[in-house]
């Protein structure tokens, strides 16, 4: 039962805020009777590879969320060399990638949405991305949940856009139009030596919150904008945020000089640090 109509129906019927609120509290509980079985069940059910975690002892995490947003061992994700090489910001599946044409991007085959609506902005700053490139990575629940910078960059501003919390799985992305523009999201505007870059952290069902390196945990609620007084530098491969459950990252590059790596295809599993392409 995964027809688009069925997916749409179930997504609209799930009490998404309630579900996320229950998950929020359950995943932050320090009660061992709740945390230990939840963590063990999750690690087993989703086949989490603990051998690459910095802390391999499942039961020692203070909360489920600490386990969920676990750090990896040093060297578990080598960062591809080259300062003009954009790396994958996360572990997950490359769902869509390509040029930005006519202000449109794709969330699934044949299902487009506009850049302006995703970013909640218009004007010259958004127009600068016309002819640029984008790629979208879906983080499944079992994936490593920290998001890293694809390039050496400087954060200029961060914007929280309120919205729904539809699941962002591929079935949902194919069934619900403009999904990423309807979900709550955090838009991070960066400047790089290779042109402007935007990283959008899209919230999803059971993503009870999104955290960023600059502004910590960003609670759901009213729209907010943070302007950096001084551009805030971040190194390629350094952590820029984390999802406190599964989700999607959209990366936008304003330059048309970016070439995707050969052999890159939608549906491919990618790992943080892996080269996704380079600037000419």
């Amino acid at each position, binding site marked *: 039962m995964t027809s688009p109509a069925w997916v749409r129906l179930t997504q609209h019927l799930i009490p998404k805020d309630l579900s996320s609120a229950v998950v929020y509290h359950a995943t932050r509980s320090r009660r061992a009777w709740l945390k230990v079985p939840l963590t063990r069940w999750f690690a087993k059910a989703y086949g989490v590879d603990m051998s690459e975690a910095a802390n391999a002892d499942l039961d020692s995490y203070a909360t489920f969320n600490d386990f969920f947003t676990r750090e990896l061992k040093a060297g578990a994700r080598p960062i591809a060399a080259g300062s003009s090489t954009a790396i994958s910001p996360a572990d997950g599946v490359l769902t869509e990638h390509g040029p930005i044409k006519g202000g449109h991007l794709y969330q699934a085959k044949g299902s487009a949405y*506009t850049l*302006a*609506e995703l970013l*909640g*902005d*218009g*004007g*010259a*700053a958004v127009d600068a991305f016309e002819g640029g490139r984008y790629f979208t990575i879906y983080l499944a629940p079992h994936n490593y949940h920290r998001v890293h910078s694809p390039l050496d960059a400087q954060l200029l501003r961060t*914007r929280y*856009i*309120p919205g729904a919390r539809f699941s962002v799985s591929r079935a949902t992305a194919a069934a619900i139009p403009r999904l990423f523009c309807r979900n709550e999201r955090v838009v991070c505007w960066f400047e790089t030596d290779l042109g402007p870059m935007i990283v959008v952290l899209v919230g999803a069902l059971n993503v009870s919150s999104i955290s960023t390196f600059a502004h910590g945990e960003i609670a759901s*609620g*009213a*729209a*907010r*904008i943070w*302007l950096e007084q001084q551009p805030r530098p971040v190194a390629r491969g350094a952590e820029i945020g984390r999802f406190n459950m599964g989700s999607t990252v959209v990366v936008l590059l304003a330059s048309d000089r970016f070439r995707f790596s050969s052999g890159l295809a939608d549906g491919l599993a990618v790992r943080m640090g892996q080269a996704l392409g380079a600037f000419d």
Partner: protein
Amino acid sequence: MLRIIVVFLVVLVAAMFLLPRGQRGAPPQNATELPQPTPLADVRFVDKSGRDAHLRDFKGDFTLLFFGFTNCPDVCPLTLAMLAQVRADIAKRAPRFTPRVLFVSVDPSRDTPEKISAYLKGFDAEFLGVTAPDADLEPLLKQLGVAVEKQHDHGGGGNYNVVHNSAIYVLDQNAEWIAVSTGPHDPKVFASDFLRIRQRHAGSGGRPPGA
């Protein structure tokens, strides 16, 4: 002695009731109140659903009026995010007093109703939005002192920036102008100022709707 104290207290209590009611409540910290509610120029707007709208349609509740355009790089997103936080803050403190926000686009040639609707959704799904042809907006902009200037790119073409101020205008339940805040805005301060203005306005015998 006792008599003096009693008389003093009676006078004090009487004074509390007899003094002009507008004197009640602290004045806003960062906004200016008008001496009396001022009716605004009647403009025929198009709302974000493409229907006709007038300011009189916004009677019955307090409204925060803000002028901008969807291609605005800085002032509008910051001010609209601020207003979203103001509404969220008031919804927590005094839900019945949560004001409406009405965004008036001063860039009618580029801001279609669909564009305004999509833009406002990024801030608060409840925000209302309207626009009107330049000539129709003129009397309202003039009355409120909103200076709008279109700055064209060197290359000509369709690219231009619209320079405007970030003032927020408070309208009462009769859709009449009662206060203005010119910024810089802070959501907590603005929320408190709005509640103060609202209370003082009610205290000064603001005319009931339809009077």
